[in-house]
């Protein structure tokens, strides 16, 4: 399987390390060409405004949208989720998301960095106890469409969900030291 991590900015290294620990190699994706022939893609945490800007300047925005629409299995975390969303609130005016995941997200919804937090999460279908959720200037999913299946909630709000081959979280499994969410995502991507 050929996996890629969008490496324009953010915690792309951590996703690669998780994949490596699970026995997969992943390439760093910075151009539209590198998107070709991928079997799975990870959209990391980072600054969504920066990534959106760089998607535009690198000419990748449309290619990435098409790839996700065409069913490329993709896991987006935090800023990665913001990129995937249909609607983004409290973003910049020029922050055009890829619009593939039928959710509405609000950026920095918990507040500033002082409100960033850790919390244990019960994740549907995950064996071995709760999952350590790390929320950093995290967004909130305020609306989910009918095709979206919520896999975990915190304070009554969805924090991990999927829509077919698209998985997305408001928290950062890539820096939690727990491989299970990546493992579950990759297991399905392989089929």
């Amino acid at each position: 399987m050929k996996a890629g991590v969008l490496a324009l900015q953010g915690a792309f290294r951590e996703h690669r390390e998780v994949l490596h620990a699970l026995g997969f190699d992943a390439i760093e994706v910075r151009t539209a060409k590198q998107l070709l022939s991928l079997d799975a893609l990870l959209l990391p945490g980072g600054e969504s405004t920066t990534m959106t800007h760089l998607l535009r300047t690198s000419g990748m925005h449309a290619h990435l949208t098409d790839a996700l629409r065409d069913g490329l299995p993709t896991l987006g975390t935090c800023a990665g989720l913001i990129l995937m969303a249909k609607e983004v609130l409290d973003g910049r005016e020029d922050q055009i998301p890829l619009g593939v995941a039928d959710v509405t997200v609000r950026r920095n919804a918990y507040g500033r960095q002082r409100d960033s937090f850790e919390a244990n999460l019960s994740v549907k279908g995950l064996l071995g106890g709760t999952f350590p959720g790390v929320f950093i200037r995290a967004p909130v999913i305020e609306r989910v469409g009918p095709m979206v299946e919520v896999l975990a909630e915190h304070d009554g709000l969805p924090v991990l969900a999927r829509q077919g081959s698209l998985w997305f979280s408001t928290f950062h499994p890539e820096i939690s030291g727990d491989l299970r969410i990546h493992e579950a995502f990759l297991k399905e991507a392989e089929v």
Partner: protein
Amino acid sequence: MTDERSIGTARVKRGLAEMLRGGVIMDVVDPEQARIAEDAGATAVMALERVPSDIRRDGGVARMSDPAMIEGIKAVVTIPVMAKCRIGHFAEAQVLESLGVDFIDESEVLTPADEAHHVDKWGFTPPFVCGATNLGEALRRISEGAALIRSKGEAGTGNIVEAVRHLRSILGDIKKITVAEDEELYAWAKNLQAPIDLVREVAERGELPVPMFCAGGIATPSDASLVMQLGAQAVFVGSGIFKSSDPALMARAIVEATTHYADPEVVAKVSRGLGDAMRGLELAAIETTFADRGW
């Protein structure tokens, strides 16, 4: 809101530093500059009253910025806002914490407040970034709770030579430690004046336990590419943007060059027609070496 949560943990602090990797953090002195920085794709802004080259020119005591000025910048951008306190000035750090600043820079660019102690950073909710010129200094700052290290370089000079020296020193020593025998690590700890546990951790990981960015002298897209290739994980640009002839263009170019640092064609493309970079200073011509501040 009832589910349990823990704030201000080391994981959460280092996590924000990790999210800033591969990006550019820009010094800004007013809301207008902050907007230009965010428009250009900055991952964060550093709110301060004067950029380092002006602090250098003006002389006198440089202190924490006016809270009203920091709040003005917070109000116009959606990206994280950082601000500087003086070395050892924990009261300024407390003020910045109360303002909701996302990252506190305990910075040698400001005039130090304590000649022996840095701020005890563990007790604060926001993460701290500190400068370092060598591995020992980096590990001492991490032992005090820094969540991010930046190589110091020499701020306000537009001269990359010190940044390169510091990066090579830190990364060179890390390389040596990874091949040292276990019993040699005690001598390393003694010589670096750093805790043995952190020295062991570096030996095992082959890198610092927190991210390392580069600051102090970056003035062009190629400068950013150079330090990223040397091993910096992101860059701070102080005077280099708003002391250039076309700040918006320079800001955008440095952002592109930081992401595509390994692709000379992209660096060449964004380097065309930028106008004048900041004028810059020879190190021999400066009176105060900021990098020597900190202990």
